[in-house]
């Protein structure tokens, strides 16, 4: 088979090794300008049937018999705009666990099997300003899937294990959020334009997730998921009267009510003009988003603004595309959007990406284009192209039957007239060049522009500060603050109870409290991804608060000592006082010293509280905090977590063995900021050796 192709290859090469562009007779073909088009076939807009059920739920039905499938969507008036400020992410988590956590009757995993066996789905999610529970099924499985859909909507169980899973997913997403430069630019733009202190701009953090409990999900669900707050749309291969009867019967017993849901919070943002950079070193382009607050679809000038933004940076013929991409060759992606929202001011934004070198020049070109569209009228051709694009492409608003249904739903949800899309079409046709100049002057505000640039400023050919003052955005992801759940009497009691069980399992509280000094010798293998060093480490602790550490590393020996308020360090590079982060770290070591930590309930400076299933929060008055994770069924401790200078640290304990009649871990795996850091193998624990302060503090 191979040789067959050798000859043609040679021939082909020879055949085309001739001068470029041989003369070709111009084909006698009509010009596109001469084509005549027949009128477009009739657009049929299917009628959506609409009824309100006795329990207040609104039902919308649309038959579509092309394929043997049925789908549905419950649209719920809720959203993460209702997240409590200290629990950002609650709505998202509620949406996730509503489905995965199963129903009162069946666990989520059981639903997974049942649905996937018949290639069906039921899914739930909560976004910015709506909640959605949807289903999809082959026609023959309609009843079975509807029953599950009903249960998910009306009796979700929010099982704890799926909240735990959702938290892993959400925490993982937070940890990955700075991996995508484009995503950073979008996120920071929203945060800066809307402000970081309100639901439109705030960013979900680890500490928020840490505070979210199952009870919060249940309460959030109960507040928003009730029949009169739900619009249910069903479409596909069914008869509408039969489906109506079916749905009515299915939801007849659901008569739960709540106060009407209040309006979504108003946008209170103030202009946040400025140039902001976020440094990301592993990219060769600058990803940028720039703009300011915009408007809604209800605004008088919405249509003119759409045409204006389209001419500025919509399609291929737009000004920014032509200037920045086609003429300058600076970008692959560049676009401008008048990003209006149904119920609150949206944004005007220009975004794209360009090689680091051409960043400042790209911004200059964009600024010039904004100035140009604000200072003179667009051309007749530009206006005509923009209008024709909307008018001739209008049929695509009706190319599937389901679009008619989503439109009815959306307009009703946000209180827009039924014929909004036709009003829009009419308004577009009426836009004039003068309108465009007027709205560009009135609504584009160069002085209010926030410019967010993510990339490597040191590679920019022209520094950005030639355009104005530059503010750096700190991308670091805050670790949870050590402020465990307010220690009310209940959680204190429960916390003490759980810790006492742990003490029992580990050899008895009195034995543990009887340890007055400890020496621990360990081999530390730093993970290869972190440099792969091998260290030998000796930690010594003397009650209540003296600590010495010796480390043998390939580059030399290091010793340090602290009494909790001061100390010293001695290493290959000389001696010094233990200060700053190193002192803080040493204080944390004292606080976490194994036997003392496990008997924290006997230290009046410490608080032990129950932080949810399997979690003990241990804190002291100087701000130290550790979470101890316990298997509640056995009372065995599993790991600790606390914050460190490089991110959250976890120490996973294993291989618990006897130490003088008590138990202690001989293997500890350390992760830092979500990445494996080291494996620690403890060679030896020595307790109550009669150590003295002199021994520990001796400089050698």
């Amino acid at each position, binding site marked *: 088979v191979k040789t067959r192709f050798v000859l043609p290859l040679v021939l082909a090469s020879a055949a085309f090794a001739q001068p*470029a*562009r041989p003369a070709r007779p111009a084909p006698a073909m009509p010009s596109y300008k001469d084509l005549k088009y027949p009128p477009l076939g009739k657009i049929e807009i299917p009628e959506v049937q609409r009824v309100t059920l006795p329990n207040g739920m609104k039902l919308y039905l649309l038959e579509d018999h092309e394929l043997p499938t049925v789908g549905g969507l419950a649209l719920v008036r809720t959203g993460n705009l209702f997240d409590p400020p200290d629990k950002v992410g609650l709505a998202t988590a509620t949406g996730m666990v509503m489905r995965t956590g199963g129903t009162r009757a069946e666990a989520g995993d059981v639903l997974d099997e049942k649905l996937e066996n018949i290639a069906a789905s039921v899914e739930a999610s909560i976004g910015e300003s709506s909640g959605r529970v949807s289903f999809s099924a082959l026609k023959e499985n309609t009843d079975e899937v509807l029953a599950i859909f009903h249960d998910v909507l009306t009796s979700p169980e929010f099982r704890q294990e799926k909240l735990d*899973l959702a938290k892993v997913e959400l925490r993982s997403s937070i*940890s990955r959020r700075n991996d995508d430069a484009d995503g950073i630019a979008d996120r920071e733009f929203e945060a800066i334009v809307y402000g970081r202190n309100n639901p439109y701009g705030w960013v979900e953090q680890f500490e928020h997730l840490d505070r979210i409990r199952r009870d919060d999900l249940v309460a959030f669900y109960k507040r928003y998921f009730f029949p009169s707050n739900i619009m249910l749309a069903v479409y596909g291969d069914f008869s509408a009267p039969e489906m109506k009867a079916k749905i009515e019967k299915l939801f007849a017993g659901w008569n739960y009510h709540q106060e009407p849901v209040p309006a979504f919070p108003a946008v209170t943002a103030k202009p946040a003009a400025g140039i902001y950079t976020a440094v990301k070193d592993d*990219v*060769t382009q600058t990803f940028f988003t720039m703009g300011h607050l915009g408007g809604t679809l209800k605004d008088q000038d919405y249509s003119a603004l759409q045409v204006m933004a389209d001419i500025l940076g919509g399609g291929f013929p737009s000004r920014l595309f032509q200037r920045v991409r086609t003429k300058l060759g600076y970008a692959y992606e560049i676009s401008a959007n008048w990003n209006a929202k149904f119920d609150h001011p949206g944004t005007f934004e220009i975004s794209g990406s360009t090689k680091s070198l051409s960043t400042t020049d790209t911004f200059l070109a964009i600024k010039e284009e904004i100035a140009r569209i604000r200072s003179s009228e667009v051309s007749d051709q530009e206006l005509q192209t923009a209008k024709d694009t909307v008018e001739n492409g209008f049929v695509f608003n009706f190319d599937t039957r389901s679009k008619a249904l989503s439109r009815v739903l959306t307009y009703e949800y946000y209180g827009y007239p039924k014929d909004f899309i036709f009003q829009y079409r009419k308004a577009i046709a009426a836009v004039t060049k003068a309108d465009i100049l007027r709205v560009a002057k009135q609504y584009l505000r160069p002085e209010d522009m926030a410019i967010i640039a993510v990339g490597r400023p040191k590679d920019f050919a022209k520094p950005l500060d030639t355009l104005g003052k530059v503010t750096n955005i700190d991308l670091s992801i805050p670790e949870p603050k050590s402020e465990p759940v307010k220690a009310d009497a209940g959680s204190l009691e429960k916390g003490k109870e759980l810790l006492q069980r742990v003490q029992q399992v580990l050899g008895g509280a009195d034995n543990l409290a009887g340890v007055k000094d400890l020496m621990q010798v360990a081999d530390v293998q730093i993970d290869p*991804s972190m440099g792969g060093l091998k260290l030998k480490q000796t930690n010594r602790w003397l009650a209540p608060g003296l600590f010495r550490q010796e480390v043998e590393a390939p580059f030399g020996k290091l010793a340090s000592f602290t009494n909790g308020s001061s100390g010293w360090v001695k290493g290959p590079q000389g001696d010094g006082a233990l200060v700053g982060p190193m002192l803080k770290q040493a204080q944390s070591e004292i606080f976490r010293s194994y036997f003392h930590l496990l008997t924290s309930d006997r230290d009046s400076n410490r608080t032990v509280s129950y932080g949810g299933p399997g979690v003990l929060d241990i804190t002291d008055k100087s701000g130290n905090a550790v979470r101890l994770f316990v298997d509640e069924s056995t009372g065995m401790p599993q790991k600790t977590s606390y914050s460190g200078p490089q991110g959250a640290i976890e120490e996973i304990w294993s291989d618990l063995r006897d130490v003088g009649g008590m138990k202690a871990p001989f293997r500890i795996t350390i992760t830092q900021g979500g990445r494996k850091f080291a494996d620690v193998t403890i060679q030896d624990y020595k307790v109550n050796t009669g150590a003295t302060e002199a021994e520990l503090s001796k400089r050698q």
Partner: protein
Amino acid sequence: MQPKRLGETYVTLKNEMKFCVLALLAPFLIQAQNLKEFEKKVTEFTLPNGLHFIVTERHDAPVVSFNTYVKAGSLNDPAGQTGLAHMFEHMAFKGTPSIGSKNWAEERKALDDVEQTYARLEEERRKDLLADSKKIDSLESLLKSGVEKANMYVEPNAYPRIIEENGGVGLNAGTGLEATNYYYNFPANKIELWFLLESQRFLNPVFREFYKEREVVREERRMRVESNPQGKLMEALLGTAFIAHPYRVGPGGWASDIENLRVSEAEKFYKTYYTPGNITVGIAGDVKPSEVKRLAEKYFSQLPARPRPPEVTTVEPPQEGSKRVEVESPSQPLIFIGYKRPDQYDKDDPVFDVITMILTSGRTSVLYKDMVRDKKLSLAAVSAPTFPGGKYPDLFLFYLAPAIGKSIEENEKEFYAVLEKFKTEKVDDATLARVKTKARASLIHQLDSNSGLASLLNTYHVSYGDWRKLFTALDEVNKVTAADVQRVAQKYFVANGRTVAVTASPKRQGGAQ
């Protein structure tokens, strides 16, 4: 008025996976009577020059989707000219002599001048150490002014503008390894305009603004590969897994190759690969087949028949030992694991499709349950049965994203344990039945859009010689047994055929905390 994106080249991993899911549907399909029903809607014909048309009637709304499938992609990039197929795809939006020019006679002359100057410049540069730097400088500035002169005659973006102002939506193109697709939708009364514009761009392409567009293509690579942790890792995976076959280079090509592409090379590529016999057109929507045929003859008959283009002849030598590559990245950890597998024509092809569904499709899949749900080691565990192509032997690919606090090492260890178990224990009947049902349903869901139909039928026609394979392959899949699954897993999921690509933290100095 969404922002439009031109020249979507290589898909991100997510899309890549999607595409593979699509390909994998091949197998399971609907019964014979469904095919009989469906066949009534489909008309096929081939013009004397070899250009093939597949027309699917769907009269629900007065709209039509078009998909032009050219059986040439970055696999066909000549050595030293990687990125060329992609470059031509971008040029296919630049218009024709009559579309996009203010004065074609003058523009053509100016374009010829540019090429001549460029040729002189290259000639001088090739003198290497003996090159005259002053001469180079002056030729470079001559080239720059020549390009500017040629650009004076350009009516920029006229070609896509005509499409958009006539109501064309979803205008784009994509260059893959094995194919390049051009697609958009028109209102049904504008179909003749599609025939005119599409035939003209492949009959009389003009390579205007080539050297600026080359910079845009270069930017696209920066965006998709160089500034994207997954893109970089994927490039490393392909470059490690394949040493000889052109699968070793991604569709983005190499930066330095792109920066030196020439008009003459793009022209030669076009003439070699954009031959009528190498192109299939899929049309789906509110059309009359007789009208389509009339217009096809009127507009596309002008494309002269030309010899079949050469096929890739390089065969990847057998892999003898597992391979591993690390890419330093400050991002969170990512893992690709690929196992060598035979091409899509192999009799075990449907078995790989079944395996990918059992292992990673949905919340009931083996890897999801073990690694994501129960052990919480991974945020995602997905697979693609054939990657990056299918036409030639390639990889069965796994992708793992460790969950927060979980390491690459822990993920890999568990992954191998699950895979070993999968190889030793036979899959149960319920699971086999489930994946077959799921596949049938997904196909039904895919038949509901014009653009999906236009592209799907094209893909099957080109890949298997008959679009009906979309339906008939069900029989092959229904024959897949638990024993087949086990046999194929044991044969191919072996260390010797494995390539692993992982991210690694930039190395730090210093000791323990």
